[in-house]
């Protein structure tokens, strides 16, 4: 599974690797949701620094996890988004609901 999940203090950090498309998103969704209900952290961090490709299925993945963590009264934070992936995320206005940190250093995603 191209996903690593670990607790970092109070935060649950899910680091995604490889391509995010509709095909890969299903397994990612299931694994992240499973971790959310197991750890019940206040904050879910999704780390995109190892993501090599992402289309709008990545936005759906994030919005779905946001709805899920909201049910627990939690918060969402996005890390390691490349400029290109940021541009796609912003089409959904996600910056209004999630904290977004750094990320321009993601060189894998061809900017």
């Amino acid at each position: 599974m191209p996903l690593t999940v670990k607790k970092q203090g109070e935060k649950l950090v899910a680091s995604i690797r490889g391509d995010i498309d509709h095909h890969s998103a299903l397994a990612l969704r299931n694994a992240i949701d499973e971790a959310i209900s197991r750890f019940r952290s206040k904050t879910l961090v999704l780390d995109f620094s190892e993501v090599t490709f992402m289309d709008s299925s990545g936005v759906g993945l994030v919005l779905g996890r946001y709805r899920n963590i909201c049910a627990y009264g939690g918060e969402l934070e996005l890390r390691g988004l490349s400029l290109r992936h940021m541009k796609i995320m912003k089409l959904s206005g996600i910056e209004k609901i999630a904290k977004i940190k750094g990320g321009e250093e993601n060189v894998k995603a061809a900017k």
Partner: protein
Amino acid sequence: MLKPQNEMKLILKSHSVNEGFARVAVSAFAAQIDMTLEELSDIKTAVSEAVTNSIVHGYGRKIGNIYITCGIYDNNLIRIKIRDNGCGIEDIKKAMEPMYSSLGGDRAGLGFSVMECFTDKLKVYSKPGKGTSVILEKRVSIKC
């Protein structure tokens, strides 16, 4: 539309595993033009959206064929057509609105927005019950 300098046609099944293959194949063909990595990623992303739509919306639980044509034209123009014989779109204008999706779940409703964002021209033809064609055009710069 003039004759392309080079053209390829690709027919694939609407298995979701083919989403990755479709974008790799199209970008490997388009890469004949010496464009920037960023432009190549734009093409990959737009193709991924269109192919995913044929799989998810066009055919849904059925498996059908997806027809992709990619042509390289004068002045670094790349033209890609993605066609399915799926369910078609009733109201194209509404379908193309940002954040509109006819499916719940994790569809963000941004497929057409991404296609528009990363290409120079987007055309959608559709007939309910017959299928959908999406045409993407992008003029790339010569890499320096």
